[in-house]
């Protein structure tokens, strides 16, 4: 072997980005996701600072101003006034509070419960899997609107009861999703390796499998926020939600409906509010889905 060594040009090493940085770059490259994030942030800000943003903060309460009854949109009332003369724009801004409260209440219960059941079903398999997936499928067969009507009429039609009714069925979707992901993660070599290293079930569930489900859970939760807002609006439209005078988007649409088509502003602005919040969460959810590269 002759040793005439030829030098080889050394190319620069590829840059390895951290997972977080990579995800952010992917998110940033997606204009739809950025628009969604912007919309969600404005909704959150409106809800948080409603008393300072709304032109007539006291109109969220029990105010009657018959002089402005059904006032058309003007420089004083940008979105017009309702049947007792309250500023509609102010009430929509306050209405986001109820919508978001519902989202937090429902998903705050449904997501942890669904995720925990899905994790257990996917990891333990066997009888646990059979019982949990069976129960989930039975619950999925109940139409949510009927359930909400039933809960509303047995108890009383309040926001809390609406939350309970929705949460009772909502966890099923999370259970199914997390079950699917957890089952495939549980079959990976690293789970077996952890078990061989003596790890407890608790460790494997929370430290090995759950971190691999977080992406899917957060995407689903964001997309769900939109559906919960929509569902909550439906319930209060049917009179099962918030009691007056608390401003709520769904019941505002229901109230305004009686004066259509002449006083169209009574419906338009609350409806746009529902649309805006729902679309924002949907776009953000889609953006997160692309960013994490998961299927929901």
């Amino acid at each position: 072997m002759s040793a005439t060594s030829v030098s080889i040009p050394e190319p620069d090493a590829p840059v390895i980005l951290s997972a977080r940085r990579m995800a952010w770059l992917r998110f940033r490259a997606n204009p739809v996701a950025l628009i969604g994030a912007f919309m969600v942030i404005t909704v959150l800000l409106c809800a948080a600072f409603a008393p300072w943003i709304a032109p007539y903060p006291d109109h969220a309460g029990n105010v009657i101003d018959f002089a402005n009854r059904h006032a058309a949109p003007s420089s004083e009332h940008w979105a017009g006034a309702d049947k007792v003369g309250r500023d509609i724009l102010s009430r929509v801004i306050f209405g986001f509070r109820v919508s978001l409260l519902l989202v937090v209440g429902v998903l705050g219960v449904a997501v942890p419960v669904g995720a925990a059941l899905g994790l257990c079903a996917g990891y333990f398999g066997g009888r646990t899997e059979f019982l949990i997936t069976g129960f989930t499928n039975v619950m999925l067969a109940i139409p949510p609107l009927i359930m909400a009507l039933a809960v509303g009429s047995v108890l009383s039609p309040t926001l809390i009861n609406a939350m309970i009714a929705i949460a009772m069925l909502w966890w099923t979707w999370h259970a199914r999703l997390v079950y699917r992901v957890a089952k495939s993660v549980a079959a990976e070599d690293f789970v077996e390796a952890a078990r061989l290293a003596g790890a407890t079930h608790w460790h494997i569930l929370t430290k090995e499998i759950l971190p691999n489900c977080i992406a899917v859970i957060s995407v689903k939760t964001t997309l769900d926020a939109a559906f919960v807002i929509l569902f909550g609006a439906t319930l209060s439209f049917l009179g099962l939600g918030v009691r007056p005078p608390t401003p709520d988007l769904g019941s505002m649409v229901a109230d305004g409906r009686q004066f259509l088509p002449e006083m169209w502003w009574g419906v338009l602005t609350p409806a746009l509010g529902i649309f805006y919040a729902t679309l924002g969460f949907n776009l953000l959810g889609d953006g997160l889905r692309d960013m994490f590269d998961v299927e929901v």
Partner: protein
Amino acid sequence: MALLEINDLNVSFSSYSQRTQVLRDVSLKIEQGQRVALIGETGSGKSVTSKTILNTLPGNANVESGQVSWRGEDLLSKSDGERERLKGIEMSVVMQDPLSSFNPVFTIGRHLEDVLYWADRRAGKRRSRADRVTHIHDVLRKVQLGDPERVMASYPAQLSGGMRQRVLIALALMNRPAMLIADEPGTALDVTTQDEILRLINDLVTEVGLSLLMITHNLGVVRMTADYVYVMRKGVIVEHGPLEQIFDNPRTDYTRELINAIPPLYGASVKDQPVSSEAPLVKLEGVSKTFTRRHLLGASDHTHAVRDVSIDIPRGEIFGLAGESGSGKTTVARMVMGMMGATSGKITVDGMDLSAQKDGRIDRKLAQIVYQNPGTSLNPKRTVAQTLDVPLRFAGLDATDRAKRTDELLELVNMPRHFAARYPHELSGGQKQRIAIARALAADPKLIVLDEPTSALDVSVQKRVIALLEELRSDLGLTFLFISHDLSLMRNFCSHIAIMLRGELVEQGTPAQVFADPKHPYTRALIAAVPVISTEEEAAKPIVTQAEKQKFLVSSAA
């Protein structure tokens, strides 16, 4: 004029405002009827080169400069449609994974007929269905599929891997292309099947007068199938020349390293591992494993994965269990680990009868495992430190001891301490496998089961990982159960070797004995099929007749 000529090709990938150059001034030439090999390790850019030729680069790839000329015409300036017309007619490709190249719901015949139909349409030819079928039968016979009728009526899943690869070659040859691009055609197959496929490709090249571009990482394959070799590394052609020159007189250190990293099968450089004379740590007596699938209606299916296997593994031994896919070697390993109970027979590890244990689980201080695929054996969401922490924490160590031991473990596997904070995707394949070894060592086991620990790694990386394992064996007095299908590696790394065929142990002994004088015809066929890199080794292989070989090829369809 050369058939294909690539001049100063530069290709880069861009993703999220990052630009990575993957090919740098690549030049390559294939003459009519020439067999050219492009070799390189993972990430060397060999597949990107073939994709540039075929115009199948992903969307974020960018050809920055250079020419690709086909019969003197520049391909890069042609439209996609014009380049599409060359495919299948002028050049064809055979890919690595024969299963994912088929749509599982269509028969093989349907695949072949569709391809022919559309190729005819493009060429403006009219052919009746009967003519097409006759033509397909001819081609299938040419790739040595003896019963074309039955092959055409089968679904992809009903054929063996070797048969599927033959069908893919038939598909590529359907319209008599001038050049065949073979991208790792044997890598996903068993060694005996790979041998058959490579011979077939060779025969076709001489018979049909094909030109061949063989893309591979395996130097043995190159020796079998090429006349002229290009060596690629990190997007640069570092060396090229006729086969003999590259193998006998390499000019660059890189090529030399690549050749030296290949474990020899025969010859003076073969390494014999010291044989252990101690008492057995693991004892298998007449162990069988039957998998039963119960049906709601009708009789249950039984699969005999392992039949009547008896082995002793003395302390300090590197016990190699060789066999092709489906031979039951992994099942044996799982039973030794206590992850699976034996149907009959007795397994004893360190004097402990496994069947008497609760859940059949083995003590983690006795045995640990290193998996084949480092990509799935480390949790992508946990850092190296967190991964290594698991066995230590559950062994009851406190935080300071754990941190100290993590450092020790990293040092044992020759990894810098700051790697503790890295996530798996920030590590290379070899580094991940080192971490997997460190995790296995963390529990301080006596036995480590190595389930093809290097088959997903490049040869140069394999060499370093194997050296590490040898070092650990002598420093820590470990016993290894090494599962592999790579016989040339086992020849050098194992101190005892056992060969399995369809669940049964057919031969065992020290590698020196087994390789010098293989008794069982299967062992002979297996050794004969290993691609080697020198004529001397080729001559030292046992001679196997075609009939003997055929006996052990998984040839039949369901």
